[in-house]
């Protein structure tokens, strides 16, 4: 297989949406409406099939962001305060507020589109926690993608989507992002998408750090293995400023299968203890004072809850247990009638299993394979490996403009959710410092960006030009791994072992080993230092050189090559930003052993930027402005 076999197809559009997950679907739904009014074309490109693509592919058991503004349940200000505290002061409050003020609208749309939301006897949504509502969400993504496809179809010839097309590279022209290059993993087609505005919604990044399971369980990452850093790569390579690239997320989940803990902690009021039965959130509460003022806020920030648990593990007090059996007993204690108690137990059992079956089926399989009945046996919980996911309790992504009416002047540059690169927008896991948006907020941020990007197209009506030379260059670059394999494959008797190239699988393992051992992965207790990071960067630079020798024997492996190039860039920006921030601010995510404390003068955004002209990295501090 080689580049010449791939037909070049140039697609012209007004708004190009890259990705097919929640943010992309929100963007398609919203942009279609504004495109119809302004005679614009919208094109969406997904690496998979939209009905099961992205982080919600498997479904979800809860929507983690719903304010209930119409019923006066919460205020936008409350939510902003919660997010700011959870991220130890580092949040773009204008972005968080913007998502929060629109998100209920998205949830109400989901319900109308057919998503079953749990209701109480008064017809109100059943709350899991203050911001979370329970859903029967097995088909959540099917439903939301159906709405996005319907909206695009309603645009007629001006709405289209491509599936199984993998985006490799941004296309720049005079400092403006004017499109993207990619290829089909199904047909021999090379795509050049030419657009007036480009929206990056290609998800977060997994498999950058070595996972705890490295056999078959390698694929059982908490966040999906197909989210491979495409978003960060795209904005970095465009020269966009990035923010919070150090703010990884390390979730604590049911051990090994990484089933959700939210329903157990919030809905069932379950407690976690060490092996001695000590509730570490109580016995170690004193530790939180060290992280004031955020250590004292309620709820305790996610990373600090991790920290207290990690200390137990460090001191050999594991296993750590989620006491599901105690939680269920407590919930039944006030029901004296035996028949009623049995009925309630049945209901709780069903809710507990649905929580896994809706979103982490593997955890149900794990319970069944260990003969675990949650009403009888506690289950182990553990910290996973680090992920890059700004829609949850991490924050890494592009530095984007806030909304005109809420953003401080330094945070506003022309169009909501536009990056520092003209014409390039970012949403969902692609935009940074607006944590806790989750599925509903990512969809909402997609809507905000989709509308703003259409406004950009109206204001910049000329179709950009991409030269034939540039197209030829991009094509050569995209298919180089196929050429390398073709050229050298007959030299050795093993398609994977050859001194002339490296296959993407081992390339990924090499990256994971560097990141785990030098950049504070799970195997070193999430600890690192300047000396370790410098060593890691040295090895990463060698990897970068070797990336020109990545080899692929088919289209699937070609995609794996590119996924790992994308991961490598996410990794580099992570190392550089951790090194830049000389303090420890999120100790349950990572700690700097050479700077073990939080410092007031580091209550700022640590941003970074790669210059496409010079190839140099620039590190930037940006002020945190309170709304």
């Amino acid at each position, binding site marked *: 297989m080689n580049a010449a076999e791939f037909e070049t197809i140039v697609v012209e559009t007004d708004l190009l949406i890259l990705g097919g997950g929640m943010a992309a679907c929100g963007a398609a739904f919203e942009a279609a409406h504004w495109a119809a009014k302004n005679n614009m074309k919208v094109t969406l490109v997904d690496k998979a099939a939209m009905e099961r693509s992205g982080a919600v592919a498997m479904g979800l058991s809860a929507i983690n962001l719903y304010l209930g503004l119409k019923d006066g349940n919460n205020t936008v200000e409350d939510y902003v305060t919660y997010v700011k505290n959870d991220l130890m002061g580092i949040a773009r409050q204008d972005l968080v507020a913007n998502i929060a003020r629109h998100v209920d609208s998205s949830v109400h749309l989901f319900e109308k589109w057919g998503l079953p939301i749990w209701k109480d006897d008064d017809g109100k949504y059943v709350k899991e926690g203050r911001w979370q509502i329970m859903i029967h969400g097995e088909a959540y993504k099917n439903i939301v993608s159906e709405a996005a496809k319907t909206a695009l179809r309603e645009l007629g010839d001006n709405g289209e989507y491509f599936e199984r097309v993998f985006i490799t590279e941004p296309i720049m022209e005079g400092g403006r992002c004017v499109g993207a290059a990619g290829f089909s993993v199904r047909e021999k087609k090379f795509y050049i998408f030419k657009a007036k505005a480009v929206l990056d919604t290609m998800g977060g990044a997994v498999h950058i750090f070595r996972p705890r399971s490295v056999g078959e369980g390698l694929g059982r990452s908490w966040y999906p293995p197909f989210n491979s850093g495409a978003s960060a790569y795209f904005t970095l390579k465009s020269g966009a400023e990035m923010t919070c690239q150090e703010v990884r997320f390390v979730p604590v989940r049911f051990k090994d299968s990484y089933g959700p803990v939210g329903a157990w902690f919030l809905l069932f009021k379950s407690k976690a203890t060490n092996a001695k039965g000590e509730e570490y959130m109580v016995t170690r509460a004193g530790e939180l004072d060290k992280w004031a003022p955020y250590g004292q806020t309620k709820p305790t920030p996610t990373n600090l809850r991790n920290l207290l648990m990690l200390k137990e593990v460090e001191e050999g007090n594991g296993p750590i247990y989620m006491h599901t059996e105690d939680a269920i007993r407590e919930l039944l204690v006030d029901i004296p009638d035996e028949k009623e108690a049995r009925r309630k137990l049945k209901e709780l059992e069903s809710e507990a299993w649905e929580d896994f*079956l809706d979103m982490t089926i593997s955890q149900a399989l794990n319970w069944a394979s260990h003969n675990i009945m949650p009403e009888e046996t506690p289950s182990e919980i553990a910290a996973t490996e680090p992920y890059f996911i700004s829609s949850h309790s991490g924050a890494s992504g592009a530095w984007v403009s806030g909304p005109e009416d809420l953003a401080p002047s330094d945070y506003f540059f022309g169009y909501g959710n536009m990056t520092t690169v003209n014409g390039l927008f970012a949403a969902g896991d692609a935009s940074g410092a607006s944590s806790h948006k989750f599925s509903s907020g990512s969809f909402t941020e997609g809507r905000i960006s989709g509308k703003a990007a259409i406004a950009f197209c109206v204001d910049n009506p000329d179709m950009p030009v991409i030269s034939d030379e540039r197209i030829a260059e991009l094509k050569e670059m995209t298919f180089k791994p196929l050429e390398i394999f073709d050229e050298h494959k007959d030299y050795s008797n093993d398609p994977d072992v050859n001194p002339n190239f490296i296959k993407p699988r081992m390339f990924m393992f090499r990256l994971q080993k560097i990141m785990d051992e030098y950049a504070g992965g799970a195997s070193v207790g999430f600890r690192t230092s300047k000396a370790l990071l410098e060593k890691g960067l040295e090895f990463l630079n060698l990897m970068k050189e070797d990336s020109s020798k990545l080899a692929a024997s088919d289209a699937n492996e070609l995609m794996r090559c590119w996924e790992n190039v994308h991961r490598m860039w996410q990794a580099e920006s992570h190392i550089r930003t951790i090194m830049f921030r000389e303090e420890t601010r999120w100790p349950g995510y990572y700690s700097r052993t050479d700077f073990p404390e939080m410092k007031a003068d580091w209550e700022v955004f640590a941003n970074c930027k790669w210059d496409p002209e010079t190839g140099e990295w620039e590190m930037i501090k940006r002020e945190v402005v309170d709304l």
Partner: protein
Amino acid sequence: MFVLVTNYLINMPSFVINEKCDGCKAQDKTACQYICPNDLMVLDKETNKAYNQAVDMCWECYSCVKICPNQAIEVRGYADFMPLGAVVQPLRSTDTIMWSVRFRNKQVKRFKFPIRTIPEGTLESNGGFSEGNADLKSQNLRTEPDSLGTDLFTK
């Protein structure tokens, strides 16, 4: 990694039952190939059976299991941390999903949950809300304020 031969007989975590898989006869691609979010399912043209080409990249999301028209795909839990013997198998209809959970000790539990409240293919993109009359430069999004149920928050 060893050279990949068509070893669908032993491929897991999601695996294909030879007897039941008919390669989605006469279709241009199999249902599992169409749906897998990680592009793992492949059709072996010689045997006309599908297989999972990289089992350790499988998220166990069950998208292939749910979509298979012949119920030819099951999941055997990751062997590096799950003891043998358990099966979790769905049966998905148009509006509900029924799960059978068989434990290692042979106990079986069944659960049934709704998956959607209106039939697939019938949704209205605006959800029946008023599209609103905001302009392109305003902060209101499509269907707001109707879909919000209240006025949009501003400073």
